[in-house]
């Protein structure tokens, strides 16, 4: 299996049950004083880390919950202790 993810509700499940929701980019920017550039930064821009990144997933074909996890993008494995790097 290429990918296994741990859903906070259902536990370890096949990765194909999930939908990827993008890199964790912090809270949605405040609409007051927002510029096209800062909005674009939030919507489109990625760090594309080759290593451990914090990211969003939705358990689409399961309980439907949204959650964040840390995953090593070079081997598709979830990381328990997320502090290694960003």
């Amino acid at each position, binding site marked *: 299996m*290429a*990918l296994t993810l741990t859903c906070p509700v259902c536990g370890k499940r096949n*990765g*194909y049950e*999930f*939908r*990827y*929701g*993008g890199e964790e980019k912090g809270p949605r920017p405040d609409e007051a004083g927002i510029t*096209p*550039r800062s*909005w*674009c*930064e939030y919507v*489109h*821009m*990625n*760090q*594309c*880390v*080759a290593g451990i990144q914090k990211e969003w997933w939705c358990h689409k074909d399961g309980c439907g919950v949204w959650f964040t996890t840390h995953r090593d*993008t*070079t*081997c*598709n494995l979830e990381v328990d202790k997320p502090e290694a790097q960003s």
Partner: protein
Amino acid sequence: MFGRVKPLWGEKSSLKSNYDAVIIGGGLHGLAAAYFLARDHNMRNVAVLEKRFIGFGGSGRNTAIVRANQRTQENVPLYKEALALWPVLTKDLDYNLMFFNCGNLNLMHSEAAMNAARMNVATAQFHGVESHLIDAKQCKELVPALNILADITYPIFGAMYHPPGGILRHDAIVWGLAKGAAEHGVHVHQQTEVTGIGVENGKIVSVETDKGQIKTPRVLNAAGGYSAALSYQMLGIKLPISVLTIQAMVTQPLKPLLNHVVSSGAYHAYANQTLKGEIATGAHMDSWPNYTTQTTAYYIKHQAEALAEMLPCLRGVKFMRHWGGLADMTPDMAPIMDGNDSIEGYFMDCGWGYFGFKSCAASGKYMAQFMASGNCPNMLKPFSLRRFEQHRLMGETAAVVNYTPDN
């Protein structure tokens, strides 16, 4: 007679401490840019830095299909020019690129898809690219192996037939461009990893490598799947890219049965027969970003199911090899070609997704023009990075099914 073999791209040259331009990435885009810089712009003091060996990445992993049937008016002329360049490059490089002008057939499986194809054909004809809409019976006449019966998962309604397309040998282009660039004085440094890019007062000044520092006023980021990570790590510039693993495979060699490239959005598969007789087939992309280039049993099953319905004569044929590569996808499925913006002397040619192969000759030519003159050629202006903050995304996602995690 059995002496040491000299590489096509010349004897290994030692890394100089000064170059007029440094190109990161020894793939097709980097080598093409180097070739055109040296040939057309007299900029011969150029280095191509490659971490592994030339053609290691997407350049040697794609399925070698070329076509110019894109959706938008900004994209079609670029690919049209690339298509016209293959025969020219074969002569100029004095190297057989094995261009097989077999034509492409994009299958449509619904009335809605047929209407989308009508628009696409109109765009192509407006730009002088040959493309026709044909019905299922005509598909069968072109490719007798095709299954046009109504009892399959996605029955064929018709197709967009694009005769100028075809396939090439991807390794030959890598080697040919490296040879051509080296003959014009370019240094191709393999096993040389870039570890940093030096910027002073908003200008590029140097490139750090594991073999020492290079002083240079110009850098081109043509690192393919790694270009976005490199851009963020070394310069802090984030790109609207998601890096996904895409897989492909070939069957055992067969007698000629498929004399066109056949692709289907609904079946999520494409297939063509190589000159060696193998059916090269692919399309599956992981739906989450990763750098694994891992292949999966999930996809072998998918591909076998799709091919068994589209081309039933392939039932029972064995897959011989299966591999993965990286596709750097942008939200609008169009590339980012930009430069001299925010950092003077920094150029980028990335976000090519899975269409970097078919475009490499044209993008190399125009990027070379851009780097030599410092002025962005009109052809490349629509592909700037700023289009994303200006909400001017291109409509390429309308061309086929889309794969990025962004949409």
